[in-house]
């Protein structure tokens, strides 16, 4: 919250402007196009790079929405902790269960 004025109870912080919002939408759209395009390339789907690359693209989209549309990049650190903490627990749970059931 360094450069963001904060009233007790109601924060005033910088949000992205329209131009940035549109760029974010364009990037999200472009990544989705690439994901679907990759799905239709049998040789790429069969390769070992397919799943990691798709996961990375998905993670990028996820992060962009959370950072810019949910304003977490500009918001208080407590909100980041409230979201990222459970998110890590969720990811750990998924990974642990997949390992436990022999899926990884």
């Amino acid at each position, binding site marked *: 919250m360094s450069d963001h004025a904060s009233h007790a109870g109601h*924060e005033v912080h910088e949000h992205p402007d*329209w131009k940035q919002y549109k760029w974010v*939408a364009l990037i999200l*759209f472009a990544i*989705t196009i690439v994901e679907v395009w990759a799905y239709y390339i049998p040789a790429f*789907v069969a390769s070992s790079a397919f799943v990691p690359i798709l996961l990375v693209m998905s993670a990028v989209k*996820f992060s962009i929405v959370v950072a810019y*549309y949910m304003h977490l990049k500009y918001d208080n650190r407590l909100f980041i902790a409230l979201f990222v903490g459970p998110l890590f*627990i969720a990811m750990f749970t998924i990974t642990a269960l997949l390992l436990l059931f022999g*899926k990884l």
Partner: protein
Amino acid sequence: MSTATAAATHDDHEHVHYTTTGLDNRKIAVWAFIGSECMLFASLISTYLIYKGRSRVGPFPHETWTSPTGEVFKPILNIPVTSASTFVLLMSSLFMVMALAAVENRGKPGYGGLKGNSKFWLATTALAGTVFLGFQAFEFTSFVHEGLKITTNLFGSSFFTLTGFHGAHVTVGVLWLLTLLAIDMKRGLTPKDTLVVDICALYWHFVDVVWIAIFTLIYLIQ
């Protein structure tokens, strides 16, 4: 928090609720709720992934299956349709931030016309959510017609449960948006209402990010 300070107001913003964190309790609550929702969807996604490939009978998501009676079932997931619904949901997030910006900056220079029309953006977001739900209804119906019900196999059970839960969340979001739209039409949303719209927007974007994960993990990864 004393009574005197709790009732205090600040500038042209809404009533300020002084808290030990200096943050509004409602916003903390919605982030905590979103955090708990992460774990709910993690349990549903992990269940789907664990059951993936363990169905004894088809139809299957990505593979063709021939039943003992000789009936051939094609891969059931319809990627073009789901890609379209994903696009609609992604765009709805853009409309949502525009609705928030319109409310937050109402009356400020540069926010006239369509840019400052929160009713339009709220209605567009709700419409996009409804279109997404329409795509989901189409998908579910076509799956049932093609022989996949929630009781057919492990894939059907985990798929319908996961995407059904997500669809229920989208439905709640659409109702929430329509409520905000009704308030906006009745008395007009002003910058004092920014937090109310912001909380709805956070929920809506969360529903979007969950779909981003579902689209990749369930639909694209074979």
